[in-house]
């Protein structure tokens, strides 16, 4: 097992000093509120931090050990809280050598080891001599499988070169015209754009508010009074204006994002090019795709297209799952793409499991029955506006809960699961049983009494929850899925 070099003491001390100054800022406030004057308070604070960092450094330095034993990278640290990590070398995804300013001063480096499922901070050697760092990197990266484990960005660069050099091998599958883009924009949730504008205006109001507060308030007051007094016509026209503005914003947004959208395939890798100003170039190896989601809504149905989003195994070091959105696919194309990613998924026979009605009781209690308590407030009870809005609210919520009950469905076949959900629109998530990482059965006390359970599948990107199904079938599905995963 290797230990840290002696120079490390200074660097760890520096790092923990900086970190502690950031975490314990509130103690400075305590000191400043004390009896002493400003400089002595700050001095006390710094002394306090120095003492703590001193202990931290000593503990970390003397307990830090790392090495490679039996094809596993092992890292031990901590005296008060002992942490002992071991990673099989095959699982290491990338090794980064980093040097910040203080490292350069002492001619050392730090090394970060990425493996899927760890936060980057966990496996970091804070100080290592440059020679050792290079050696360690060579040992750790020698058995990286090119496509599977190599840092995807590096692979991307290489692939981009080959693809761009060789247009002929590219198999163009799909592209979007301007008319398609407009259709996409209309079928999107256009009010999202409108809300952003309203927030923007509100932001400006907040910002300039201090300067022109009185004028703006007066104007607002007047216009509000005008709106209320002139009744439904104005409200309706306001609604139309907002709709038009939102639509325009939505169209601009979609064009900026998806202008010249091109979806092609080269061997086993999908290639997406898109964007007007910021050109995006995305490469997705088919093997890495974890889940496949497609969404429709009534307007999209009218235009006959769907929006697809796919997730791939996390390659970002900061553990954020990004889904890649592919808009405007016709249902034919969707089927083809699905078939391409998950082989034979359309031809297998699925058994369907509807969600138990009881699951929706909690929504009825939370969103329909609990608001009725407002009627205990006498002031509200006598307001006409309140009554009208309340009745509309109750009816709408009831409809939405009913719709989401109707849409919820879960199907499983030999190799795949599909979850359907939604309210007005409908979404489907498809994934293969082999891509699932872990399974959970969850039951509340009441669910145990009436023998139902939630079933939760974790893929490496998404958590797929199947709420409130019969306990026996949940267990059976879990047994079967485990059998599939372990095969």
């Amino acid at each position, binding site marked *: 097992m290797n230990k840290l070099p002696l120079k490390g003491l200074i660097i760890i001390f520096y790092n923990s000093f900086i970190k502690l100054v950031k975490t314990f800022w509130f103690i400075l406030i305590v000191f400043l509120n004390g009896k002493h004057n400003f400089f002595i308070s700050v001095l006390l604070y710094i002394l306090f931090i120095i003492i703590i960092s001193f202990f931290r450094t000593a503990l970390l330095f003397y307990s830090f050990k790392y090495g490679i034993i039996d094809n596993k990278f092992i890292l031990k640290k901590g005296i008060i809280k002992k942490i002992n990590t*071991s990673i099989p070398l095959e699982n290491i995804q990338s090794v980064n050598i980093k040097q910040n300013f203080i490292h350069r001063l002492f001619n050392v480096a730090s090394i970060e080891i990425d493996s899927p499922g760890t936060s980057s901070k966990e496996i970091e050697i804070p100080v290592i001599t440059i020679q050792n760092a290079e050696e360690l990197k060579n040992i750790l990266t020698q058995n990286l499988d090119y496509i599977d484990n190599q840092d995807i960005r590096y692979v991307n660069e290489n692939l981009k070169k080959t693809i761009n050099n060789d247009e002929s091998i590219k198999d163009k599958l799909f592209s979007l015209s301007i008319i398609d883009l407009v259709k996409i924009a209309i079928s999107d949730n256009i009010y999202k754009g409108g809300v952003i504008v309203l927030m923007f205006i509100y932001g400006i109001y907040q910002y300039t508010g201090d300067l022109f507060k009185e004028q703006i308030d007066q104007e607002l007051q007047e216009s509000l009074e005008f709106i209320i007094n002139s009744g439904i016509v104005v409200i309706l026209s306001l609604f139309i204006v907002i709709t038009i503005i939102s639509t325009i914003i939505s169209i601009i947004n979609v064009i900026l994002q998806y202008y010249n959208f091109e979806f092609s395939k080269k061997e086993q890798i999908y290639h997406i090019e898109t964007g007007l100003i910021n050109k995006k170039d995305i490469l997705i190896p088919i093997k890495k795709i974890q889940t496949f989601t497609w969404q429709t809504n009534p307007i999209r149905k009218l235009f006959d297209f769907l929006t697809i989003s796919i997730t791939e195994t996390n390659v970002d070091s900061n553990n954020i799952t990004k889904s890649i959105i592919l808009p405007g696919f016709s249902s034919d194309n969707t089927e083809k793409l699905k078939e391409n990613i998950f082989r034979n998924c359309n031809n297998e026979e699925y058994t369907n499991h509807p969600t138990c009605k009881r699951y929706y009781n909690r929504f009825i209690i939370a969103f329909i029955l609990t608001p009725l308590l407002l009627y205990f407030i006498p002031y509200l009870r006598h307001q006409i506006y309140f009554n009208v809005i309340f009745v509309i609210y109750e009816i709408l919520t009831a409809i939405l809960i009913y719709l989401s009950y109707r849409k919820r469905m879960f199907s499983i*076949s030999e190799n795949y699961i599909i979850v359907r959900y939604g309210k007005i629109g409908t979404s489907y998530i498809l994934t293969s049983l082999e891509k699932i*990482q872990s399974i959970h*059965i969850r039951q*509340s006390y009441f669910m145990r009494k009436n023998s139902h359970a939630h079933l939760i599948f*974790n893929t490496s990107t998404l958590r797929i929850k199947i709420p409130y199904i019969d306990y026996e079938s949940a267990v059976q599905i879990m047994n079967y899925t485990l059998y599939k995963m372990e095969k």
Partner: protein
Amino acid sequence: MKFINDNIDYDSLPDIKKLDYKNLDKNSLKTSRIHMIFTMFILIIIPIVIYLAADEFTSIKLLLTIIGVLIIITVLLFLYQKTLYENKAWCLRDKDISYKHGYIRRTISTIPFNKVQHISTSQGLLSKFFNLKSINIYTAGNSAFDLTIKGLNNDDAERIKEFINNKISLNKDE
């Protein structure tokens, strides 16, 4: 429920319900109780400090009610820890590890070894005193989904870690 187009016999699949679960180390009940009492102690101290520090806020009745309620909660939580302890259990099978926990909301989690990316053990000060270790099992992707088993005794934790590590390397070799 039937899976058409498949030849395996569903009754012959190993059943997750019939696992031979093992409870955690008895000392883990003590550590969780100590943790709980420590937290509650701080919660009880806060109103006392406020009472002593603030001049206007001098209703001793209110203070005593708050402390009384907190002490009742502490006693209930103290008793509840026992139920929680009895409901925590783990089980190793040839190809996967399962862990169940919770009483009001019970979760049974299972991770097959061939999905495990790596595994680590950790030990706090209190658990060191009681010879306990916790074990973290990481799968690919989002770390929110990982499995942590707290309160195993030292030997068990190391044995599980060794067992799973061997399984991982075996899987990779194939």
